[in-house]
């Protein structure tokens, strides 16, 4: 078990490292940061000065190790645009996005898990069809469009909910609902599929044959086995939501990591973009490790691997 996780951890670190190299290289492809820093009116001499001032004249490898070295110490450099320490920018914004992503995931799970279970239990019934219909619709509706419709209906027409910002819990309702539609269908489908497999399994037949009541069969015997892929998906989804909240954040003016990334991409503030990619991949890797731990709790076969 411990060895298994040491190995997983090693691979995870390698993954993060690779991601950081790729994002670093990718963003340096995007052109000369010194030009951006100097602004449109600058002369070549001024650009050169800036290049030296910011250390951009050194080799890519030296720059990477420089960045990676400070990143290990928690220093992710400074924004080209506002000169703020990137670490602070991210730590200011991450909690907002994290709240949003976690609440969306929780909402998605709270809706999708029971729905998936009952859709599997009552296969081909109206509840199954309704759940599948919801999943099909949920995975087809463009989130930005859905967000606008929500704003229109609940924000403008009925004025029930605040439209933008992230001050109170009420502000999070519409973004959470919108964002959760991005992961809910998948969780629902996976729960349903896993439950169908589990319900067909011999050990569930055995549970029925033991005279257990339906709730014990569904939730004790079937769901726990169906849950493994759902837990993994939930971790992946959370990572996805953290990085994919950019649209929702933009529409609802939530000042999270997504909008920071979006703004930074638009204005070519690449130290920020690069660090966000790095941090998100790190978070993702941590989440998958976490899901592995949870799965190991759920399934002893993994534990004793």
């Amino acid at each position, binding site marked *: 078990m411990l060895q298994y996780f040491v190995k997983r951890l090693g691979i995870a670190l390698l993954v993060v490292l690779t991601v950081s190299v790729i994002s670093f290289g990718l963003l340096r492809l995007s052109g000369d940061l010194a030009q951006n820093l100097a602004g449109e009116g*600058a002369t070549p001499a001024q650009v050169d000065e800036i290049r030296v001032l910011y250390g951009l004249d050194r080799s890519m490898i030296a720059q990477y190790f420089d960045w990676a070295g400070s990143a290990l110490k928690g220093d992710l450099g400074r924004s080209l645009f506002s000169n703020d320490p990137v670490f602070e920018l991210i730590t200011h914004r991450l909690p907002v996005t994290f709240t949003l992503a976690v609440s969306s995931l929780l909402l998605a799970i709270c809706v999708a898990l029971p729905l998936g279970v009952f859709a599997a239990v009552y296969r081909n019934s109206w509840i199954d069809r309704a759940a599948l219909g919801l999943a099909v619709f949920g995975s087809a509706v463009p989130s930005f469009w859905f967000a606008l419709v929500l704003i229109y209906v609940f924000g403008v027409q009925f004025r029930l909910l605040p439209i933008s910002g992230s001050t109170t819990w009420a502000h999070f309702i519409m973004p959470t609902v919108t964002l959760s539609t991005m992961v809910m269908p998948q969780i629902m489908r996976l729960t349903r599929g896993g439950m169908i497999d589990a319900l067909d399994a011999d050990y569930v037949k055995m549970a029925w044959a033991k005279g257990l009541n339906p709730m014990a069969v569904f939730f004790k015997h079937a769901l726990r086995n169906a849950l493994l892929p759902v837990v993994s998906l939930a971790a992946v989804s959370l990572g996805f939501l953290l990085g994919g909240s950019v649209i929702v954040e933009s529409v609802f*003016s939530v000042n999270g990591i997504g909008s920071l990334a979006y703004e930074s991409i638009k204005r*070519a503030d690449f130290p920020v973009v690069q660090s966000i990619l790095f941090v998100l991949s790190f978070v993702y890797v941590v989440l998958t490790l976490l899901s592995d731990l949870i799965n190991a709790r759920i399934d002893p076969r993994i534990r004793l691997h």
Partner: protein
Amino acid sequence: MNYWSRIMSAAGALMLVASPALAGPEDGTLTVALATPVEAVDIYMGPGPEVAMTANAVFNPLVAYDTGSQSYRGVIAESWTRIDDETIEFKLRPDLVFQDGSALDSEDVAYTINFIANPETRFRLKSRYSSLVGAEAVDPLTVRVATRGPFPMLMARMIGIPIYPSDSHSALGADYANWGRAPIGSGPYRVVGFDESTGIVMERWDGYQLGPLPEFKSITFRPLPDRQTQIAEMMAGRLDVIVASSPDQVAALTSMPGFEATIIPDMLVQYMYLDAAGRSGIEFFSDVRVRQAVFHAIDRDAIRNNIISGGTAVGELTRLCLPYQVGCPDGGSPLSYDPDLARSLLAEAGYPDGFDLQVSTWGPSRPIAEAVVGYLRAVGIRASVDALTLGAYRQKQVEGGLQALVSSYPYGGLPDTGVVVDFFFASPDRDYYGDPRLPALTAEANSILDEDRRAALFRETLDLVQDEAFILPISRDPAVILHTDAVSVDASPRGDVLFAQFSLFESFGTTPAILGWAD
């Protein structure tokens, strides 16, 4: 009237009857949308319109420019004299204080100028200040600013240099980027709350010395990047002021009772240039007839009236510079809209079937580029929009990849035509004209102090641009302030231009702030 529209108007009516704006004269709080989140109330760290709007309420520069009389006037400075070609001496107003009660004297001015001129301090667009060598406090009310060689645009630059208190700013040391979260200035508003997510809260500083106190007791700046969210919030009564970004936004909101739009003219210039030098590998624009054909194909009036917010209220733009700018020559007649002539010019130049063209653009000029592309397609040029982010645009420009560019002149508000020619012709990056006369003329104009000679050089430069069809001035771009009818906007020419549309809250001398409560 269809279902949606009916619901819409019902909703609108309901909204206005049911709940009045949350903000308003009752509690003296004004809520303003920020199209880009402001990370720091510090124009040096974050050069951009939204930062300017907030920073200008907190800080004051040495001087301001009066667009009415087209002359500089003192703000923190009382008077100024040129010592020599490279030095100007400013006399400060006596007894000025910062919001923390510390004295505002020549030390602070010298500190601020030396801070931005210091080659070791890092911030973006620093090259704007590269002509400054430094400043020196002669006595508590006298400060001398030195430039690298004769620098005719020093006064224009000075209006964009807010003065920081030396003690508190220097105390931050290397963490000067944090200054903007709790800034201390000498302006009419103090920052009392700063949060990137919820916004910036400012309160009126009753100790303001440089002009009449503004009317709003407090202002909340809320970051709202999305256009429709701004409208929704405005309709929901949670917002008082938006700087409009499209004519549709204006038309939409003003069609409802309770909302008004006020136009403040002449903020930006929209322009287009073509790769006459052939840097991107295309050769057709080296023929002046093709360039003329392109410019003839574009209906500038239609673009101004339909695409540019407030465009109907401003006149035609005939030159690249704005009329209030020092040295901007009058006259000028850009190529008229004449698609037939455009087609025949193209045929004459050997392109009867047109050609493929990428019209690059970035930022807010994108709809204009889209309209331009539509016009070019109408005369047979297979144009498409190449919308870029700032970074990609700069990269492409430096690498010589632009075939044609529709963009805006982003330093609007600096009241000197020298800034304009410098912007277009000084840097080799931007040189898609291939005419050596242009940089030569610019270099001369920006290294002498004789205003008449400069004006002559500007006229020569801009006439050359017009004759050779290098650049098409498309439109002057006003700022449109969308506001509730509880707010009044004074759009008359005034003496406090400094990124004018974004200095809505400060007042100098006897002139009140642009924004106030409606009676």
